[in-house]
């Protein structure tokens, strides 16, 4: 087995387990570990730590193994009721989880041996975790020997991990594995007893097989949740009584078996929890490749349809129509494969919020809604950082300290809600707090000082607030905390979200809270757009920002204060000329079309020579060229194979 092949898989899975670990710890912070809900969290925690340990053992990642082992040992004692988790221990486990995360990332980097900066931390954490173990040592009982009927073959004694879920089913898996090695002559206790309530995970079987004990141990251990397998050759020999039976080998769950098999065992140990594997992990690059191919097919489809239409052969047109439909479905299918539920990113946030709240002495009740809403994977990854920013901001600047809250007649704990909702072709992610709201007076003063608004302005509207606080370098925070207040946050959030074709909206009510909404396209790869022409060039305008398009009549264009405007339904909107934006000479606007663009409250009309219609376009990025207009960051390939630039309306308004 080549561990490098599994490195990425290890990383992905270990990160998932780390999320579970953190969530379980957060839950345990609020409930005692010996109660019902606490008990479940401990179990969850234990399983995740155990799986990480198994995977790391196989991969040979020592630091990860040592940490997870120490955590597991502590947790095993908690599960056995020998110890209850107090606050101190939970925070120790939080530290251990952090170190584990570092160790995971460091171990799985390309040069696992090169650097492990936290090696000392690992050692000291392991010591601290183990410090609570001495008592347990004495209690480790000698495992009782089960009496097997004498017969052919060797006696195999198996102990499952204490607390294994469905020990009977697990034991039967072990028996099934034994059957694949040879003949199982007897099993004690019998299967019915195994499935009964009293089964404690200790059983024995007699196996007549032509393989050596190392093989037996590794094969049976691979069933998962197996703590110990012992092979005893108790066959009566000349001059040797059966009671002289001696253990011939004693190996822990991860024995010296075939490495590949051990690997499978570690990975497969969740098999019982998820009875059917309905999901596979796919390398994103493969999916991207499929996406590119599907996009190419769309382009060929356009060409075919054009050709077929010219031929006027109904059979050909039918066939092309059918192919078109299939190609569209194929593309939708591939796109669907890129969609992931937002919880894949959201589930990291409870920890972020908890840490922020603790370091600032705030009490925060964090609520996540709409975890199952799906978003294009690439997009979701891109918004993770902005969301962290907004959440920390809310804890730092939005939510007040418990004393202030109580004085204001609020509950001491602030409520922070992160929600995702689907709204037609967009997903709206909202970060909402019930804190003090944005300090309008302060922002207004700052805006005046910076000359961003007229000096006589009395009040800033919400969208103006956003514009002022998003200005790079702007901060009203009195102190620069560890978390935010450096004035880069909102600016970074806005530019990232806009680059993704999304919008940011701010609503703030004095004393009652602030909410940031991020409106994002569901996918980055395919967007509906209006194709327009100026001169002999084609451009695509994403429909996200288009409200309507209309033929331009000469009469409705006027000049106000030297600027061209259009009057539509008694509304006066500025006019932009695409010819001007792309550096083509102006022409008479008669017979031109105007595309109405809107972004939040800002609106404008974009004048184009001709409209070619609406299409689903495949967005292709390209390397930005120095000096080139910044409103073009992507292009789409037209049916003739040429590229049409995509106009980013948000950078024009």
């Amino acid at each position, binding site marked *: 087995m080549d561990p490098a092949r599994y490195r990425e898989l290890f990383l992905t899975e270990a990160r998932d387990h780390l999320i579970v670990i953190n969530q379980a710890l957060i839950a345990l912070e609020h409930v005692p570990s010996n109660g019902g809900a606490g008990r479940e969290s401990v179990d969850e925690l234990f399983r995740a730590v155990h799986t990480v340990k198994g995977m790391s053992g196989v991969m040979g990642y020592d630091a990860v193994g040592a940490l997870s082992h120490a955590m597991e040992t502590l947790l095993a004692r908690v599960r056995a009721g020998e110890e209850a988790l107090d606050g101190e221990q939970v925070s120790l486990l939080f530290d251990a989880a952090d170190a584990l995360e570092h160790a995971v990332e460091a171990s799985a980097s390309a040069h696992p041996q090169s650097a492990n900066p936290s090696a000392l931390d690992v050692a000291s954490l392991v010591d601290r975790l183990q410090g609570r173990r001495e008592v347990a040592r004495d209690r480790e009982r000698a495992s009782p020997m089960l009496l097997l009927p004498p017969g052919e073959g060797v006696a195999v004694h198996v102990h499952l991990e204490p607390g294994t879920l469905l020990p009977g089913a697990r034991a039967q898996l072990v028996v099934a594995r034994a059957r694949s090695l040879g003949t199982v002559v007897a099993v004690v206790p019998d299967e019915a007893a195994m499935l009964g309530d009293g089964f404690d995970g200790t059983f024995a079987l007699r196996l007549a097989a032509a393989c050596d004990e190392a093989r037996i141990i590794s094969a049976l251990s691979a069933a998962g949740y197996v703590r110990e397998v012992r092979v005893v050759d108790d066959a009566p020999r000349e001059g040797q009584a059966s009671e002289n039976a001696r253990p011939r080998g004693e190996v822990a769950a991860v024995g010296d078996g075939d490495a590949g098999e051990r690997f499978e065992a570690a990975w497969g140990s969740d098999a019982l929890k998820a009875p059917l594997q309905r999901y596979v992990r796919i390398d994103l690059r493969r999916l991207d490749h499929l996406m590119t191919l599907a996009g190419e097919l769309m382009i060929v489809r356009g060409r075919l349809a054009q050709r077929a239409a010219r031929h006027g052969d109904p059979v050909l047109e039918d066939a092309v129509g059918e192919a078109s439909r299939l190609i569209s479905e194929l593309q939708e299918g591939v796109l669907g494969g890129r969609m992931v539920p937002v919880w894949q990113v959201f589930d990291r946030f409870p920890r972020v919020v908890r840490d922020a709240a603790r370091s600032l002495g705030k009490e925060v009740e964090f609520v996540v809604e709409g975890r199952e809403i799906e978003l294009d994977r690439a997009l979701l990854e891109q918004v993770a950082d902005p969301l962290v920013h907004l959440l920390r901001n809310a804890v730092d600047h939005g939510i007040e300290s418990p004393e202030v809250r109580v004085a204001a007649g609020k509950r001491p704990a602030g409520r922070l809600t992160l929600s995702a909702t689907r709204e037609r072709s967009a997903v709206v992610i909202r970060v909402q707090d019930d804190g003090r709201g944005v300090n309008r007076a302060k922002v207004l003063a700052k805006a005046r000082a910076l000359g961003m608004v007229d000096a006589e302005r009395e009040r800033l509207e919400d969208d103006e607030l956003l514009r002022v606080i998003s200005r790079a370098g702007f901060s009203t925070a009195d102190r620069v905390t560890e978390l935010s207040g450096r004035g880069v946050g909102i600016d970074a959030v806005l530019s990232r979200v806009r680059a993704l074709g999304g919008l940011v909206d701010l609503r703030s009510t004095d004393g009652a809270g602030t909410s940031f909404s991020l409106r994002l396209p569901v996918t980055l790869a395919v967007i509906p757009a209006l194709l327009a022409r100026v001169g002999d060039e084609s451009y695509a305008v994403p429909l996200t920002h288009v409200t309507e398009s209309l033929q331009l009549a000469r009469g409705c264009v006027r000049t106000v204060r030297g600027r061209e405007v259009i009057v539509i339904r008694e509304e006066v909107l500025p006019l932009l000329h695409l010819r001007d*934006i*792309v550096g083509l000479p102006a022409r008479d606007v008669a017979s031109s079309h105007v595309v109405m663009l809107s972004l939040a409250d800002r609106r404008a009309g974009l004048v184009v020579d001709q409209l070619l219609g609406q299409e689903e376009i495949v967005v*292709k990025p390209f*390397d930005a*060229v*120095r000096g*080139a*207009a910044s409103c073009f960051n992507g292009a789409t390939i037209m049916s003739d194979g*040429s590229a049409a*630039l995509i106009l980013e309306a948000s950078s024009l308004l």
Partner: protein
Amino acid sequence: MTRPYLIVEGGGTLFALAQEVVREIVPARSFTRLPGAPPAVRGLLNVRGTLLTVLDLSQRFGRGSATATDASVVIGVTNGRSLGLLVDDVHEVHGFADGDFVSTSTDVADSAVMGLGHFGDRIVLAVDLQELARQTLA
């Protein structure tokens, strides 16, 4: 020690490009103009579904633009970024030692020029594609 260079011609001038950065050569087709870009940037070319920024090599060095109807685009890759160079003609691969290029006249006070060399009885301008990409792409 000599290294292989691809000799190309554009606007009547010969250029030498280190072969190690040249990935492939494709026929030139219609480009999509990039508004605002420097004049030597011809625009975007669709190469099997990937968009490539194409620079007119001879125009970039003030030697007149490539005009051939069967012009080619030499695709170079440096630091993971691709840049296409539009040329009239692709000649051959020729070995040059570092000492074969001299930077003499003020004409080559351009960081993308590695120097001038001889190719038969003609002068060849050795071009640093990495620097060219750095200057062209943001």
